[in-house]
């Protein structure tokens, strides 16, 4: 081995050491595969899966507007008509310029209504001090109290006329006249009425009959026609292998709307080909013979895939 080869050997060994050392300390490390490992998912195997909505989903009626109410309306206190006009008392203290006795009916909803009151009061007030001496003059005094009640009485009129006119307005009559005291108007939400309303949703009660329900209906029909089927006699060997697809049109009460129709036959081979017509007739006869079908779920009658128009397979017993 020459000197050059020794040098080369040393360099090569050193290079390999460096390379493998780098790889060993994770120079090209792959990401930790623990993070890539999928967490186990629990899987349960179920026998029956209904992919379609099996239960009827009746469309809900639209909501009704129910607003906070104020309770039974109270009768308006009848405005005392007596005190004001027939009180021509000349010595009347003009102190009550504010028409406190003026009936402030509870159900009066509009606050701006009392506006006339202050209008009346100032009118009367300046009049009083202007003629302090002329006390015997009853004319202005009369005018003032008169005006006040009138104004006050006029205010409640628009709202409580009915109750007020009845005078003795009992709670009953008031309630009958105005059964509801909603704080909100009828149109506080557009499209919602205060009255209960029927749904206008055009969706059928159930979107579709699920596969399991269809199988249940088929089983129920099969069970009911089984007595008729059992009475039938096989026309020949191999006839029981024929399966007839038969279509029923059923009324809502379970009776047949029309004669069942045959949609086709399967399981026909060379042995039983000559019995096909006979078996089809027997199938129709079995359904006609045990015709009124009972106990079918009414909610699945008129939906797509429901039993109003039902196709099932019939085969001779045996």
């Amino acid at each position, binding site marked *: 081995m020459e000197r*050059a*080869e020794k040098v080369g*050997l040393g360099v*090569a060994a050193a290079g*390999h050491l460096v390379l493998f050392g780098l790889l060993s*300390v994770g120079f090209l490390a792959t990401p930790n*595969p*623990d993070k890539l490992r999928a967490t186990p998912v629990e899987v349960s195997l179920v026998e029956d899966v209904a992919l379609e909505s099996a239960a009827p989903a009746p469309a809900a009626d639209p909501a009704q507007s129910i607003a906070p109410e104020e309770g039974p309306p109270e009768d308006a206190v009848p405005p005392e008509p007596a005190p004001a006009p027939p009180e021509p008392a000349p010595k009347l203290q003009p102190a009550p310029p504010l028409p406190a006795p003026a009936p402030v009916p509870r159900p009066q909803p509009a606050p701006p209504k009392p506006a006339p009151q202050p209008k009346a009061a100032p009118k009367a007030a300046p009049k009083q001090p202007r003629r302090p001496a002329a006390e015997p003059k009853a004319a202005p005094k009369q005018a003032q109290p008169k005006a006040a009640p009138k104004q006050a009485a006029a205010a409640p009129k628009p709202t409580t006329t009915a109750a007020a006119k009845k005078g003795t307005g009992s709670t009953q009559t008031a309630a009958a006249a105005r059964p509801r005291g909603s704080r909100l108007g009828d149109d506080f939400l557009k499209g919602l009425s205060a009255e209960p309303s029927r749904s206008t949703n055009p969706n059928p009660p159930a979107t579709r009959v699920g596969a399991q329900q269809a199988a249940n209906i088929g089983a129920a029909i099969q069970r009911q026609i089984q007595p008729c089927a059992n009475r039938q006699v096989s026309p020949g060997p191999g006839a029981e292998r024929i399966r007839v697809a038969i279509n029923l049109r059923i009324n809502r009460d379970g009776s047949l709307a029309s004669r069942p129709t045959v949609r086709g036959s399967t399981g026909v081979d060379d042995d039983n080909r000559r019995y096909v017509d006979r078996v089809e007739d027997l199938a129709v006869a079995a359904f006609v013979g045990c015709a009124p079908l009972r106990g079918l779920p009414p909610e699945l009658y008129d939906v797509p895939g429901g039993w109003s128009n039902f196709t099932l397979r019939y085969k001779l017993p045996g």
Partner: protein
Amino acid sequence: MNPFFNTDAATLSPVALFLQADWVVKAVMIGLLLASIWTWAIIIAFSRRVARTRREMAKFERDFWAADDIDAFYKVHGTSELPSARVFAAGVSEWRNSTAASPIDKSGTRERLATAMGASVAAEIDHLSDRLNILATVGSVAPFVGLFGTVWGIMRSFTSIASAQNTSLAVVAPGIAEALFATAIGLFAAIPAVIAYNRFSHGVNRVEASLNRFADGFHATLSRQLDGAR
């Protein structure tokens, strides 16, 4: 284990892969690693030697054709280790032996000169390309050796599947990774060896061609001298 080395299976650590391997695979890996080291040693040494040889040969031939007196030139360069110098020395010694007798057999001398220098060229080329066969061997055999290690390791992995009754990837993956590591080392050793072999074959061929040209030229010179001699 060693805190410095990542020995867990999830990394590409060669040490971890080596330590987990079967002893057959370990032997394969060690052999291939040694082959790789030896290959690179040859590559480094050879490339330096060929480059130096060609450089010095070019200088020698320049000096030779510029020299006036062959005997004086022979005194200086007669003992050189250079291939050209060896060929030159072989020619000169054959010339001296053949022209020592008084009636010179010209055609016989020419033949002997050609034979002596051709033999010298062949000897020098043999000496120069001594290590190339190792490169050729490593380049052709290392992939198969690595493949053998891989096949062995994968067989062992499948046995472990059978014994663990579990086909999950976690059972198979480490074994297959360490098995494939054997092929990786084999290719790691073989690819440079093949490349270097082709490249050095070409270099040796060029040296040989250059030596032959020099020998032919020297032979022509001696032949002319022979014609001029009595």
